[in-house]
């Protein structure tokens, strides 16, 4: 019954089908493509987390906090308990980020606009400041993360981890799609449009934002954990510094808020673009990224996804 109801939603069936195809393609591609796709999908998950907030009209400039928390949770879990199981790791990453998100949410839910962005930034930089200066937490070096095991089995290839990321991605994307189309999910846009009206309709805006914030933190934490597992390394400068937050926001601008699939497409595109750009023009990479960001803000405010929306077969209502 539920499955039937879900498969009626075109976005959901498309998402499930594309991830399934991706899972099969994963069996046939060389390792570097598999790696790049894993990094991309993991980042995409974090960007999906940002999307939840963005639809509420909030831009977090400090989501590296949760990305880093997820990644460090995985690394520290291994360091202090030796656990390397993929599900435990994922659960710990997600739970850590969600717990911190829940606590900080009490403060952040009262902030909007630039203040929200700045307070998120401040929180993430607090974590950065702690990590970078404490030897027990690896300081600037961070830690290595050993290969992931699955229920005690140590796989030979990266494919099982890839599959895990795919599954997490599917669950998250479908979950978010169900959420966005539910009444609670439409409240995201409602809150962005008019907080006063939401309050007068009898719903607490602060609570709505808090829920979304925790959701967003949990998704991003899981993303950080998966990223650390795929990469095998955590360090503060590439996981917690403000530039990482900027990069995540960049990908969400690139992807656009149009669909739950957009973050994954945007992030994977970004990953491969970067791989090639680094080889071809290592000194102009940031120039390309920065220029693209400006270009999208100026000319494509609803991101890459809006190009897909404009395809003739997808003529939907579009107000801009």
């Amino acid at each position, binding site marked *: 019954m539920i499955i039937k109801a879900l498969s009626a939603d075109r976005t959901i069936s498309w998402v499930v089908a594309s991830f399934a195809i991706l899972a099969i393609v994963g069996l046939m591609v*060389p390792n*570097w493509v598999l*790696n790049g796709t894993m*990094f991309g999908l993991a980042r995409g998950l974090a960007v999906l987390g940002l999307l939840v907030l963005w639809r509420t009209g909030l831009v977090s400039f400090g989501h590296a906090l949760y990305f880093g928390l997820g990644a460090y949770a995985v690394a520290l879990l291994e360091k202090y308990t030796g656990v390397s199981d993929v599900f435990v790791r994922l659960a710990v990453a997600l739970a850590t980020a969600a717990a911190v998100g829940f606590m900080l949410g009490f403060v952040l839910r009262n902030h909007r606009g630039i203040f929200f962005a700045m307070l998120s930034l401040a929180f993430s930089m607090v974590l950065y400041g702690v990590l970078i200066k404490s*030897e027990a937490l690896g*300081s600037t070096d961070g830690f290595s993360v050993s290969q992931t095991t699955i229920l005690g089995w140590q796989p030979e290839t990266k494919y099982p981890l890839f599959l895990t990321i795919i599954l997490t991605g599917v669950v998250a994307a479908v979950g978010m799609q169900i959420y966005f189309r539910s009444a609670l999910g439409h409240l995201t846009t409602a809150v962005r449009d008019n907080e006063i009206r939401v309050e007068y309709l009898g719903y607490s805006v602060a609570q709505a934002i808090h829920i979304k914030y925790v959701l967003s933190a949990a998704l991003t934490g899981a993303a950080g954990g998966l990223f650390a597992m795929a990469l095998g*390394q955590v360090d503060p400068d*590439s996981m917690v510094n403000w530039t990482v937050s900027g990069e995540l926001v960049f990908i969400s601008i690139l992807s656009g808020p149009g669909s739950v699939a957009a973050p994954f497409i945007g992030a994977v595109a970004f990953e491969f673009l970067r*791989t090639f750009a680094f080889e071809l023009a290592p000194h102009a990479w940031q120039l390309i990224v920065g220029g693209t960001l400006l270009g999208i803000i100026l000319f494509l405010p609803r991101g890459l996804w809006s190009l897909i929306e404009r395809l003739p077969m997808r003529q939907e209502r579009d107000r801009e």
Partner: protein
Amino acid sequence: MKKGIFRSGALTLALGAFIGAPIVTTSAFAEETFKVAVVSFLTGPAAGPFGEPGRHGAELLIDAINDGTMPAPYDSVGFGGVQIEGIFVDESGGNAKQVAEYRNLIEKQNVDAVIGYISSGSCMAIAPVAEELQTLTIMSVCGTPRLFEGNDWQYTFRTQAHAVADSVAAALYIRDQLGDVKSYTGINQNYAWGQDSWKFFDIAMQKLTPGSSGSDSPQFPKIFAGQYGTEISTLLLEDADLVHSSFWDGDIEAFVLQASVRGFFDKKRFISVAGASAVDNLGKRFPEGTVVGTRGEYGILVREQEGELNEWFIDTYRERYGVYPLESSYQYAQTVLALKAAMDKAAAESGGTPNEDQIIAAMKGLEFQSLAGNVSLALGNGHQAVHPIGYGITAWDEESNSPKLVDIRIYPTHCILPPVNQMSEAWLEAAMPGADC
């Protein structure tokens, strides 16, 4: 040779259209050349003093060996008869980026071996991945002893002695040359290399100069911090006679400039474990009377040293790049020499082009002649190099209008490194048994 499950079949689904083209091109794998990635800092504060000279050192030797123009014993053409194609890669951007880049080198660019790495952070991060991807990886510069102590890597080697050697040699030099140090403090970077350097220096000082006392609040600024005004104040306020620093890269240059204006070097003796590059780069601005090491028989320490290989290296390097080779030039060159020695050996044993396993077998415990001394991979189960380390005091040579080191002392390996199968820290704490120097 590579482990990807790989079929150049119909990859037109989803991602296929996007990344399909490059997959096909990378499948054409040339066997004739041996592809070696040389990783060093090509951007950022470490590029000028370490990355670029290191890259040049490797580049020079790879070209010379490919052409067979090096002096004996490296005068044969190629590496075990094979030509090496070097590709040069940037080390900056943090450990996570390095790991990603490393995977990319092996899995996308089909590199056969990776050499280089300057930062201890990079080395610690790369070694487990090298193991996972089963690729020969030889570290050139990084110094943390943690790399092989407690880890049993099969695919990772290091042709540079680790921080314990630098620290013990520093303490020995202080005892032998300065004598009267009563107290000391330090300023080191806040990561593996800086933390280890200070820790081992502190223990070695306690054992070798029992009359001296170390500070309990040494400074650990962030690497590449660039501004040290407040740190310099704290150091000046401390009573210590001597300040120890393992700063390298642009940080040592910035620190020396900022400190010398404030008369720091008139008030404190300063020992720089790895700052020799700054002596050349800063010229007259580098204070005279500073104790400086090069972490081996490299750079300014051996600039006047005779020997065919050393003289050839200095001359060809100056001819090609217009400057003297710095310590990292020697360190990277040393790694290339190790690879040459191992591949020659493996080729001789196998009677043909050696494969990766044969090279690794030949590499284990290898003893080879470096540019200005001998190196042997004696520690870490045959993976970690030992070699002598020297210090000297900076002076200005009016005649040649260039800096030089005087009162040079070079300490042999048994004085500065633990014997096989002993952990460095335990050996140091036990007052370095067996090192009667």
